[in-house]
């Protein structure tokens, strides 16, 4: 057990979400859910972040932004995809400007389903990601590269 899981700082990026999941993430910070109990802070700065929380799916304009932010987060880091848009494109899957879930670009560690994902569900997802964060830390110390390669070309995502 390291300090990582006691002080996870978030970076939230709204890829092309409808705001539903975004405001639920924000709601997590507010008194009713108060994730600061777990040491979680929404830093808004990739350089300080440990957990990359993404809502919404990728499109032409934000795909570079997503990769850029991901690269700026220091290791160990995990990515949590919030909501079905981030997982698969959701209801907008068939839109011409939606390329699908964010795992087509960056490796996703936890998927939180829901439309919009409930705050409780988001908290669960982030707590789940802490375990992965710990694993990555252990691997980093040992020098094992656990980071899956990022796909800059859109890859076949999550086939069975």
């Amino acid at each position: 057990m390291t300090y990582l899981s006691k002080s996870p700082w978030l970076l939230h990026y709204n890829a092309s979400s409808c705001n539903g999941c975004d405001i639920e993430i924000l709601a997590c910070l507010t008194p009713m859910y108060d994730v600061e109990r777990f040491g979680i802070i929404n830093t808004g700065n990739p350089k300080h972040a440990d957990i990359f929380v993404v809502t919404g799916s990728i499109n032409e304009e934000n795909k570079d932004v997503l990769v850029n932010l991901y690269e700026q987060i220091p290791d160990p880091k995990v990515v949590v995809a919030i909501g079905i848009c981030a997982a698969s494109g959701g209801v907008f899957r068939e839109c011409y400007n939606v390329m699908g879930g964010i795992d087509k670009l960056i490796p996703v560690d936890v998927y939180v389903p829901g439309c919009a994902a409930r705050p409780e569900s988001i908290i669960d997802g982030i707590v789940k990601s802490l375990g992965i964060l710990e694993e990555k830390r252990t691997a980093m110390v040992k020098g094992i590269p656990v980071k899956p390669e990022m796909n800059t070309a859109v890859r076949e995502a999550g086939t069975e």
Partner: protein
Amino acid sequence: MKYEEQPITVITIDELLARTTRFFQDGYRLVQIGCTKVDGKFEINYSFDKDYRFENLRVELQEGGTLPSISAVYFGAFIYENEIHDLYGISVMGMNIDFKGTLYRTTVQYPFSTDTKKEDDSCPGR
């Protein structure tokens, strides 16, 4: 519940600036500009409102035609006109702020001018 009267006046492109200027002088505000592609030609609707009275102008444009900008009359019109350009590929002449096609950078260029069906992958396993 009663539904609102929504008169639509079809005008030619040449009339457009004069008509919008008149609306402007009469104190109408620009509600929206929207475009629809019907049977290979574009219908462009200009909606105005004054004291909850709703007026519409409609211009029809053949494919490849150009549209004069009304942003000199209504400053805010540029955002709609840029949108029309980016989604339909209609070139709008004389916009006060021209985004040059970068308002929406889309995977498919001018998505509303063509049929942009993605290949069907409705199998839920994927």
